[in-house]
């Protein structure tokens, strides 16, 4: 069920009924969110609850008493600890600042005041980090409604605007060095809306709700996108139509020299601007794909247009044919090894949008209308591609998928698959978890759905806890081949009980499917288990609607089935490590480097 067709006032008016209907959905991911507020937080929480329910989560909330965000976190955290939150959201506003600079305040005094206020929040964050395993979301500050010093307010050391800009910069610095702290950019959200539309002073004086309902909704949507990102549910692929979406006109009718692109006319400029937006997304790691009803050869010519900012190399997948679009989208999902629920589809044609939305489960189809000049803003408002942090991995992902295409074309030329695998000259680094990689390990664990035996999710904090716990044997795998570095692509986590090692996690990125990585991982795992005096490995398969591909994973690796039942059911598998001989044939496993 999508909430897109409801206005903010409808959402609030029909909230209880919508909540009841949405809560009937099965398979929702539970998430426990504590909200520590400096003003009344109920409206933001109500809207966030609806957005999360519609986005596949079953949230439970804890809300601090009004205004007690500091006390609840620092002095009296018992209730917060007992709630065991996955996420703590500290929702504060400019009114919660204890002491603001006055006109005449010196530079040193301004600095002290900023540090004092920042220090109060550092106390809050540290206390939460110490007492809970939660990810923290802290908003930064909107500017106050009045700049009493006029333009000088942003310049003078006695200016309140200057104080908040400095405080926000301190918050950003804290978050940059603390992966458990994320900043919600309320300063940006309120600026986008305009402070006149952000604050609602009548409601503040009456109920201590500071914002308009639109302001509350903007905060709730941005929070929902952060929660999706924390759980690895942000979208990954932007699927684009061509005619009247990436250029003006119909290339099959008009020809490549007549399509509208470039700087010559307002219409041409608007298409170029949208192409630039798409390239921007690509640069930060969003994959692009084409899905267009067109002759493929002619469609490709569009990107040879001298003013086309987008080039063929930007696309990880290119489907231009006369098949129904939803079928092409499913084919794209298969080729990229990604779920279509991580896709956003953009097409100027409402009929195509409707059929894709109806036929492809979970895909996001924003109603972009038909004015290309509005497309980017509408896609942005959907907050589909929210990242938690930018890893080098994200930045090079687009390039990785490109070299995957090159691998696929090579595959056809070999006599047998083994020969092909050998030609890839693969080397793997398979070692125990390291602090350096723990963020990526948690990220991979939370976003992998298909090659994932148990689909257990771990917050970054939980994964960090595993690092220091001697009961656990956690292995990560990185794979390189002649086309490049695939990065960290596999995680196995075993938990020791007596002489058995229970495999709580075994997962792998689908971009290295069918390379034999799982065999290499097992070789190292058995070695490590033996060294630790473990007699047997116990593997578990917990079926979901996405991980059928690994139903026979342990069988293929030579484990004995312990439980009975059909292949599709949950099962337990056992491997005696004493008579195991290493089997990895096509991947060279690098010797660990110590010191």
């Amino acid at each position: 069920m999508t909430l897109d067709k409801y206005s903010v006032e409808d959402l609030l008016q029909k909230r209880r009924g919508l909540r009841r209907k949405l809560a009937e959905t099965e398979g929702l991911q539970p998430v426990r969110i504590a909200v520590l507020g400096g003003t009344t937080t109920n409206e933001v929480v109500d809207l966030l609850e609806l957005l999360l329910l519609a986005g596949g989560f079953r949230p439970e909330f804890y809300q601090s008493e009004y205004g007690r965000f500091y006390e609840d976190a620092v002095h009296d955290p018992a209730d917060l600890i007992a709630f065991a939150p996955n996420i703590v959201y500290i929702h504060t506003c400019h009114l919660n600042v204890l002491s603001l600079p006055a006109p005449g305040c010196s530079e040193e005094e301004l600095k002290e005041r900023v540090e004092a206020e920042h220090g109060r929040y550092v106390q809050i964050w540290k206390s939460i980090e110490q007492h809970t395993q939660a990810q923290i979301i802290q908003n930064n500050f909107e500017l106050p409604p009045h700049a009493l010093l006029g333009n000088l307010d942003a310049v003078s050391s006695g200016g309140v605007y200057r104080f908040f800009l400095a405080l926000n910069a301190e918050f950003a610095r804290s978050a940059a060095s603390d992966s458990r702290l994320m900043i919600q950019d309320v300063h940006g959200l309120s600026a986008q809306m305009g402070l006149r539309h952000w604050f609602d002073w009548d409601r503040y004086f009456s109920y201590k709700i500071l914002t308009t309902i639109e302001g509350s909704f903007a905060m709730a949507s941005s929070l929902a996108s952060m929660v999706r990102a924390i759980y690895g549910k942000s979208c990954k692929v932007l699927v684009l139509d061509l005619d009247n979406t990436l250029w003006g006109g119909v290339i099959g009718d008009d020809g490549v020299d007549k399509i509208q692109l470039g700087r010559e006319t307002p219409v041409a400029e608007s298409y170029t601007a949208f192409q630039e937006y798409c390239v921007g997304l690509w640069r930060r790691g969003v994959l692009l794909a084409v899905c267009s009803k067109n002759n493929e050869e002619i469609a490709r010519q569009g990107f040879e247009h001298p003013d086309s900012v987008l080039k063929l190399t930007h696309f990880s997948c290119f489907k231009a044919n006369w098949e129904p679009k939803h079928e092409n989208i499913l084919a794209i999902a298969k080729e990229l090894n990604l779920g279509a629920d991580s896709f956003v589809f953009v097409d100027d044609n409402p009929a195509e949008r409707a059929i894709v939305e109806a036929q492809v489960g979970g895909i996001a189809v924003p109603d972009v209308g038909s004015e290309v000049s509005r497309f980017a803003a509408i896609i942005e408002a959907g907050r589909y591609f929210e990242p938690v942090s930018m890893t080098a991995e994200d930045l090079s992902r687009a390039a990785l998928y490109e070299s995957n295409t090159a691998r696929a074309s090579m595959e056809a030329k070999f006599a047998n698959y083994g020969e092909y695998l050998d030609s890839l000259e693969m080397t793997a680094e398979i070692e125990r978890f390291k602090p350096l990689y723990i963020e990526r390990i948690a990220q991979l664990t939370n976003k992998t759905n298909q090659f994932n035996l148990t689909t257990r999710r771990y917050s970054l904090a939980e994964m960090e806890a595993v690092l220091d716990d001697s009961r656990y044997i956690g292995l990560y795998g990185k794979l390189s081949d002649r086309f490049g570095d695939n990065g960290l692509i596999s995680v196995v986590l075993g938990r020791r009980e007596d002489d058995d090692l229970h495999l709580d996690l075994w997962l792998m990125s689908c971009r290295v499917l069918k390379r034999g990585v799982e065999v290499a991982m097992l070789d190292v795992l058995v070695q490590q288990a033996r060294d630790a005096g473990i007699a047997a490995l116990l593997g578990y398969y917990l079926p979901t609607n996405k991980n059928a591909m690994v139903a026979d994973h342990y069988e293929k690796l030579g484990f004995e089935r312990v439980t009975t039942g059909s292949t599709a059911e949950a099962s337990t598998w056992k491997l005696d490590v004493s008579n195991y001989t290493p089997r990895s044939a096509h991947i060279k496993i690098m010797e660990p480097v110590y010191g």
Partner: protein
Amino acid sequence: MDNILEELQEIFRDVLDQPDLVLTRSSNASNVDDWDSLAHINLVTSIEKRYKIRFALGELQDLKDVGDMIDLIKAKLAAQ
């Protein structure tokens, strides 16, 4: 304007998620289930949006029941 009671009933039914709620001029927070302070905020916001009016600070404090609210809405609409 005589439909205001009916329109308010629809808003109350939505906000309180009580599809069979029957609203009368004498309905008030003590004889309508779940009409608590948080629901009240939603009711006021929905009414303001529905009639494109804004209640002034303090205007709502003196209202005893739905009848008073209807009269206030009528007065505000007439003044526009």
